[in-house]
């Protein structure tokens, strides 16, 4: 009976070969799948978030330019609308308020934003999830952002109290919404979104006009640019119009905090897709090369016979390339499934973290086609050398057994270096020396696994270092109180008298643009007195640096983006009310991982701004036993617009990063184990098939199974150990690239890898090595001694 009727004989051989070598084929397919999955996961999540953001911005008219002022007359809005390059201008009222939430001791901060009465918003339209927008003039109604509502289990009808412009106002929630302006809803001075302590509150324009004394006026405006308009020019003109009304300098989307954070996240995803997948593709190509070479060498005589029968080189070559293609397709299929699944999971995770009203899952066919093409390409390149080698042999030569491998003595043998080593170990060493390329590539494959693990794990080290530097060495205050306007120095005394306050240190902030030639950055310039203890500046060795008597301290990120060094002169454009430009010398470059930092003496800053001694806020340390009393007092204090609590910030920082990093790290560890396993398993299987005869001979001579297995495993163990230092170097390098890729104006990652991380990475790969060795050991134990010894070498 003819089985598989109609299938050509060579193809039948192909299918049977795949079944015969299925564990090795699967191991290779899984490595291929890892590369495909990471590519699809990263790029798929990136595209999904990109598209989600694009649609959200378009549908809800996210503005292009944002500006604030102290108080500008309403009629200015139509003048601004007429500026060249402006398509739409919408004025509003926006300001911060301290919130008193029942059941929460610490005060929260709310950003109150007005909604036009009697007409819908034109720009930054909220997406109402439940309820409605507040009625015109309804001073007790508020619509809040969904994350805040969820954090407090608030619903329509829930109440809380806000201190608006020094007056307590009870508010009732009438609506719950999302906004494109607050996809990343972060409070002033916060590092991470704290939905318990920061709310976006939409209220009636009339109500906020009355609350903030802005009748017939506005203090915030957003613009939509016309097609082809140049943002910088529009901003320049807008600043000119708002200067006399206390404008603090307009900015585009790139400086809008929510957009900036989302951008940084997307940048990281893109970096991920560039760094990780090539590693997997490289390892896959190497594995395929190794496996195919061995397979072809075992089938050498068959190939000669097939050639002698009249099959062309093309037919034989395509037979082996079909084998490679089949393994690749299996890997690609698994990779597609895993990548799509993980990508959707990652997108959902981001959707949870960022406040999107909907999520678009991008399944562009081109991504899958590219991933498949890259994978297949890598596989074919890996297999090409082996295939061409098989084809080069004339049929008659191929049908003869190959000449035996020639071994030589090891370096140093003449001086008796290996005298005390057993013959079994000598066998292993000489085998490695005989096939140095294969040994090197096996070690390289393993070292890539180690490297991948280091890249995954070092994130924890970096985060801990960031936390240590930021929360325990630099920003050591318990809280920061911000005032709505610059306030006279005597407010420091008032702060000292708050319950439990142990120390008060003032600060001043001003919106500036720091320039060096054509490079510039918009940032908040901070002024501090000399000798602050609560907050400190750190040098590159994390030692405290005093605020210099003259000049400016900037952090490394700012120094790098503006190409500024110690001693350079920088141009400071004062955006607040357009007070002109000054020149300041850079005294020192400090280490700070959060944002763009520029610092000088508070007296110098006030002088720069041509103002007397005023402060924007104070950092405080307080007795935690009196925390409740302090909070109560703060909630009652009219002239505090917002409060940042450090211990909350630290807790949130850890929790948020831990969740994000843990998921990615788990995925990478899984993938790295697959690589280690794939490399070791294939190497061991190939060695087993090549040395079955030697191993069987040893069994016949009376060596136990464990002793015989040691011959194989000694070589694998040596390669695994050799792979570690190389893996550490690769991990170090990949981590450095990752740090550079992830660095942004919002935060940079310290490049710190603890010794324990190197050790953990090595332990995991060694464990994977041992695991695959155990599986191969079973095959060694099952060697059919008689069958092996009867076959001719």
């Amino acid at each position, binding site marked *: 009976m003819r089985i598989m009727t109609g299938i050509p004989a060579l193809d039948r051989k192909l299918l049977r070969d795949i079944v015969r070598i299925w564990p090795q084929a699967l191991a290779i397919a899984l490595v291929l799948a890892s590369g495909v999955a990471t590519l699809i996961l990263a790029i798929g999540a990136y595209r999904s978030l990109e598209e989600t953001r694009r649609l959200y911005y378009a549908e809800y008219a996210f503005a292009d330019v944002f500006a604030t002022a102290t108080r500008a007359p309403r009629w200015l809005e139509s003048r601004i609308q007429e500026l060249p390059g402006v398509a739409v201008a919408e004025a509003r009222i926006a300001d911060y308020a301290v919130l008193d939430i029942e059941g929460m001791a610490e005060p929260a901060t709310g950003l109150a934003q007005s909604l036009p009465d009697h007409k819908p918003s034109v720009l930054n339209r909220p997406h109402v999830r439940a309820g409605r927008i507040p009625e015109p003039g309804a001073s007790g109604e508020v619509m809040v952002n969904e994350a805040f509502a969820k954090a407090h289990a608030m619903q329509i009808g829930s109440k809380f109290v806000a201190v608006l412009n020094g007056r307590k106002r009870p508010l009732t929630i009438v609506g719950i919404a999302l906004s494109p302006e607050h996809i990343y809803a972060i409070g002033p001075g916060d590092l991470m979104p704290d939905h318990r302590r920061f709310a976006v509150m939409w209220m009636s324009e009339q109500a906020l006009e009355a609350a903030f004394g802005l009748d017939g006026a506005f203090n915030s405006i957003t613009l939509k640019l016309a097609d082809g308009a140049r943002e910088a020019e529009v901003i320049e003109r807008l600043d000119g119009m708002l200067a006399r009304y206390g404008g603090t300098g307009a900015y585009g989307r790139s400086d809008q905090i929510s957009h900036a954070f989302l951008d940084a996240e997307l940048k990281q995803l893109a970096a991920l897709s560039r760094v990780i997948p090539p590693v997997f593709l490289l390892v896959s190509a190497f594995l395929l090369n190794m496996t195919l070479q061995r397979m072809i060498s075992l089938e050498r005589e068959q190939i000669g016979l097939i050639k002698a029968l009249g099959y062309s080189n093309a037919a034989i070559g395509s037979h082996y390339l079909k084998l490679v293609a089949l393994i690749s397709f299996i890997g690609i299929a698994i990779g597609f499934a895993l990548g799509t699944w993980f990508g959707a999971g990652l997108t959902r995770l981001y959707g949870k973290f960022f406040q999107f009203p909907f999520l678009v899952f991008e399944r562009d066919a081109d991504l899958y086609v590219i991933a498949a093409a890259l994978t297949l390409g890598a596989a074919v390149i890996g297999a090409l050398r082996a295939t061409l080698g098989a084809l080069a042999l004339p049929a008659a030569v191929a049908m003869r057994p190959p000449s035996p491998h020639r*071994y030589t003595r090891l370096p140093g043998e003449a001086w008796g270096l290996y005298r005390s080593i057993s013959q079994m170990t000598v066998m292993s060493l000489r085998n490695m020396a005989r096939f140095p390329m294969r040994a090197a590539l096996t070690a390289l494959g393993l070292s890539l696994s180690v490297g991948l693990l280091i890249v995954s794990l070092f994130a924890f080290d970096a985060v801990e270092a960031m936390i240590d530097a930021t929360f325990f060495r630099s920003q050591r205050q318990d809280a920061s109180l911000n005032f709505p306007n610059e306030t006279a120095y005597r407010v420091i005394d008032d702060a000292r008298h708050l319950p439990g306050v142990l120390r008060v240190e003032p600060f001043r902030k001003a919106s500036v643009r720091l320039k060096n030639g054509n490079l510039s950055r918009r940032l908040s310039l901070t002024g501090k007195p000399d000798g602050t203890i609560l907050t400190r500046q750190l040098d590159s060795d994390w030692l405290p640096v005093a605020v210099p008597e003259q000049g400016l301290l900037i952090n490394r990120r700012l120094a790098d983006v503006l190409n500024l060094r110690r001693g350079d002169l920088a141009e400071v454009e004062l955006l607040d009310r357009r007070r002109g430009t000054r020149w300041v010398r850079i005294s020192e470059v400090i280490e700070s991982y959060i944002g763009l930092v520029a610092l000088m003496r508070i007296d110098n800053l006030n002088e720069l701004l041509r103002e007397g001694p005023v402060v924007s806020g104070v950092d405080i340390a307080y007795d935690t036993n009196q925390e409740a009393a302090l909070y109560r007092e703060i909630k009652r204090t009219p002239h505090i617009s917002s409060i940042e609590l450090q211990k909350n910030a630290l807790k949130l920082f850890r929790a948020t990063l831990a969740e994000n990093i843990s998921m990615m790290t788990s995925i990478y560890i899984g993938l790295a184990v697959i690589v280690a396993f794939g490399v070791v398993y294939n190497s061991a299987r190939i060695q087993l098939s090549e040395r079955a005869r030697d191993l069987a001979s040893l069994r*016949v*001579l*009376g*060596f136990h199974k464990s002793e015989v297995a040691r011959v194989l495993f000694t070589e694998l163990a040596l390669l695994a150990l050799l792979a570690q230092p190389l893996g550490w170097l690769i991990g170090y390098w990949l981590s450095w690239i990752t740090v550079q890729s992830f660095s942004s104006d919002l935060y940079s990652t310290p490049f710190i890898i603890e010794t324990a991380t190197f050790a953990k990475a090595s332990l995991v790969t060694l464990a994977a090595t041992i695991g695959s060795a155990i599986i191969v050991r079973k095959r060694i134990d099952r060697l059919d001694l008689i069958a092996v010894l009867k*076959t001719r*070498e």
Partner: protein
Amino acid sequence: MPDVVFEARNVTKVYRTGEVEVHALTGVDLDLYAGELVVLLGPSGSGKSTLLNILGGLDRATSGICRFRDLDLTRLDEKALTAYRRRYVGFVFQFYNLIPSLTARENVSLVTEIADNPMSPHEALELVGLGPRMDHFPAELSGGEQQRVAIARAIAKRPEVLLCDEPTGALDSHTGVRVLEAINAVNKELGTTTAIITHNAAIKDIAHRVCIFADGRIAETRVNERRIEPAEVSW
């Protein structure tokens, strides 16, 4: 009473591959005595290699009794069979089975390192006439030289028995004779009980006894009244 080293009674061996049964041995009775050289002669498929493998602890009989002195080989587990081979048995195969990455001396050391009372590798290789070539790799030796290294490796541990499966099968007659000389020397000088499997009838006359195999059993056993030296053999 002659010193019986091996005792086989009604030994059978059946191989099953799917539904097909192959009766390789159909009831073999055999005694091998200490110090003798026996040739097991027969065509391919007659069961002689199967019996050798059972005697050497590489395989187990399906039924029957097979003893090495007081040791019942049919009752030994895998570990015990390995220990038995390690201590008592030397093997020589048709295709030498040397470790290619070890020199001649090192191939012999492989065995002496795990033996209780071995001779030195040098001594074993001298015995087979390969003293000057002991530091060469197998790829640098001729077929006959490789087989003699295999013999040296087999006897270096001073085994009680030497089992040779077609030791001259891959060699020309001139080289084969040299190998037979080495085996004969080992049997004479060390008193090792030696069994040689072959389908080459010319070899049978160097033995003390010849067991002729056919269809899975010993059809005939002959005692050579006069033994010839290996140098007198030709084929």
